[in-house]
């Protein structure tokens, strides 16, 4: 996610041509050594080390003697590593649900069942290969100052109306993902398009306001905080809390809120499936949820909240996610998005 989609693809291909060792693009890398290590758990993840290091350490505290080698990569690089290069990893964690689904669907994931994974709700696992361990809503983040004198939007139609009626205020101050380069942005946008027609109208309005396009949630949130942006649309809500700011406010959309499930899976290339299973159990165990969310700031799997709030819609794992990965579908979608977003 951190790297432009196309760039990652290209780099992946280029490096693949160069040689087999770690041809995919690594962003960050860290060893978590222990004395008298009996095994090393190889993790590839799209999650920042800043967020995941405490989790890894908590896992090590509970499983003495396990060293961890943690690699951060973009979701496309992760896909390249596992799908094309068949790199050896014990754990793959990603926010790109569609790519994780494709990996599992195409046979790159190991089936794992345990008493712990069985406690996950139906919607939080697929084929006993992909397991969700966080539920992160896609939200709109606004700067309260920028909305002074205006009512706060409660749903997308209201947001569209506000943007349309106040072009001078929002011109070049609206931000969203560049879905061409961001896998997560693409996932959110496609799910939006599935949920409601309003997405295309919103895109059109944002395009007319010459919206800024971003690669990542963090930058957008930062720009809202600094006042450069009035609205950032389809941002990972949990990051906002992480950055905490007085002026920044999350719009509680009442029409619907897509929820991304961060998922973990055991790649087929693993040489220590039992150890990998232990890590999956660690992430998915109900009793670990509070600790994990405290350590990482990521919202845990929480079926109760989803039941109470009808607007929260977890993106469904399953073959439906393969649809937007279809080459033609992607081309069509990007064409439509581009014509709405980037207006002459």
């Amino acid at each position, binding site marked *: 996610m951190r790297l432009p989609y196309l760039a990652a693809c290209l780099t992946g291909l280029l490096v693949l041509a160069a040689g087999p060792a770690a041809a995919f693009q690594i962003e960050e890398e860290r060893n978590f050594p222990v004395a008298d290590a009996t095994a090393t758990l190889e993790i590839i993840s799209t999650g920042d080390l800043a967020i995941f290091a405490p989790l890894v350490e908590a896992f090590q505290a509970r499983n003495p003697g396990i060293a961890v080698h943690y690699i951060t990569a973009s979701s496309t690089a992760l896909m390249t590593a596992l799908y094309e290069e068949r790199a050896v990893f014990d754990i793959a964690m990603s926010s790109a649900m569609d790519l994780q689904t494709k990996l*599992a*669907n*195409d*046979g790159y994931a190991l089936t794992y069942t345990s008493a712990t994974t069985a406690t996950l709700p139906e919607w939080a696992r*697929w*084929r*006993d290969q992909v397991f969700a361990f966080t539920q992160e809503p896609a939200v709109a983040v606004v700067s309260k100052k920028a909305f002074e004198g205006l009512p706060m939007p409660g749903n997308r139609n209201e947001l569209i109306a506000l943007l349309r009626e106040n072009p001078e205020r929002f011109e070049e101050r609206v931000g969203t993902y560049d879905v061409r380069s961001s896998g997560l942005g693409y996932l959110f946008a496609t799910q939006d398009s*599935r949920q409601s027609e309003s997405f295309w109208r919103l895109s059109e309005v944002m395009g007319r306001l010459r919206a800024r396009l971003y690669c990542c949630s963090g930058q957008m949130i930062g720009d809202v905080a600094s006042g450069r942006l009035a609205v950032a649309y389809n941002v990972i809500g949990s990051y906002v809390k992480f950055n905490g700011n007085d002026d920044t406010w999350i719009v509680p959309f009442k029409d619907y809120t897509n929820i991304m499930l961060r998922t973990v899976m055991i790649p087929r290339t693993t040489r220590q499936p039992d150890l990998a299973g232990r890590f999956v159990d660690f992430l998915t165990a109900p009793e670990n949820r509070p600790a994990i969310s405290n350590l990482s700031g990521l919202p845990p799997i929480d079926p109760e909240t989803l039941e109470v709030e009808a607007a929260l819609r977890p993106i*469904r794992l*399953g*073959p*439906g996610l*393969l*649809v*937007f990965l*279809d*080459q*033609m*579908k992607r081309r*069509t979608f990007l064409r439509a998005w581009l014509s709405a977003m980037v207006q002459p």
Partner: protein
Amino acid sequence: MNQPFKPAISATGSLRRRLIVQLLVIAALLSVVLYVSVSTFARQAAETTQDNILEASAAAISEAARAERDQVFLDIPYSALSMLGAVSEERVFYRVMVDGVTITGYADLPAPEVPPKLRRPSFETTVFRGDEVRVVATVRRITVADETVRLTVLVAQTRAGLAAISLRISIAAAAVGIGFFLVSGTLSWFAARNALRPLDLLAQSVARRGAHDLRPVRSDAPSELVPLLVALNSFMDRLRASLMRTEEFIAEAAHRVRTPLATVRAQAEIALRSVKQPHNRQTMREVIRAVDESSRSAGQLLDHAMVTFRSDNLARTEFDLEELARDTIRGIGPTADLKDIAIRFSAEAGLGKVKGDAILVQSALRNLLDNAVKYSPEESTIEVAIARKGRTARVSVRDQGRGFGDGDVERLKGRFDRGTNVADVVGSGLGLTIVDEVARAHGGSLDLASNERGNGACVFLTLPLA
């Protein structure tokens, strides 16, 4: 005659077993048919369901295709693939081709060998990427730039869940089949038993009969057994007639022998008186003794024949056993007096009556008393007592004679069997035979024992009370 009847017949298999085995084979066949049909039906139903979803998915994809400028343009609907994930978590693959050239999807997904026709999709089960998959292929014509092209859509889904369902159903079907077999096996066992019950009953009623019971079998029998019964009855009829002829012949013969023997004895007595020479007197005595033996034999043979004949069609009249015993004792009185033997008689009060043939019972009593007197020394006492024992009356005759000795006592009931201790006592060996047969004919028994009060024999004749 006391030996149980040992058939010289070896059984060639058992009707019941044959019946059960055949019924079991049928049950097993039915179970297998049940299992096969249930599991195939279930599998087909599951397959049809999957085929239907696959076809719907392929159709949805196919319909989404349209011509745009000079190209086929396809915007796969989200539902086309998501519907495949609705029921099960199977892996999903698809491939879209225009005139055989893949435009999107998994280019290596194999098409079914039978090509699809317009509006007639084709299905195939193959292996793709290590899993068994069900593939559907649909075809449609699209006109692109004035040219008609064939749009082929393949959609495939793994069958792991289906296989699991099939397995579960198969196991359930197997359980049902086994259960069916067990139930029908048990039922066929009962059925065989029931069907053969009349045969068992007939065999039992024939086997239960006394050795001399040659009355026709009168029990009701199923039509299949009637010929056998008729044959059996006619056979017994003939046997009875032939037996009767034999007995009649014996009686006639005995009678015819006895009369001239009496004459011979009388003449011999007269001759003995006139003969003076000791040697000749001895000869005469032996002649008389031989005549006595013959005459006794003839008499006993006659009695035996009578007993056999009368027990065949036993009279069932009630009579007073005590009175009958007194009569018989009175009859034997003179013979006992000759040896100065006293006969003491006692009977339990309120004994009740015995049902049967008084003549036969009297003959039995006479033989018992005759033995007691014959085998007792002079000036001894014979005790006759009648006592009630349960639902029977028991006559006991005790003497102070030589007793039965140590040999096989039961043997003495046999025809012409005499003890080793008879010395010069005249006898034919038929007495106890007669008593035994009378006892059996009445459903009673004859028991030989030693006199528990010292020397001598003790004989019990047990007869059921009316």
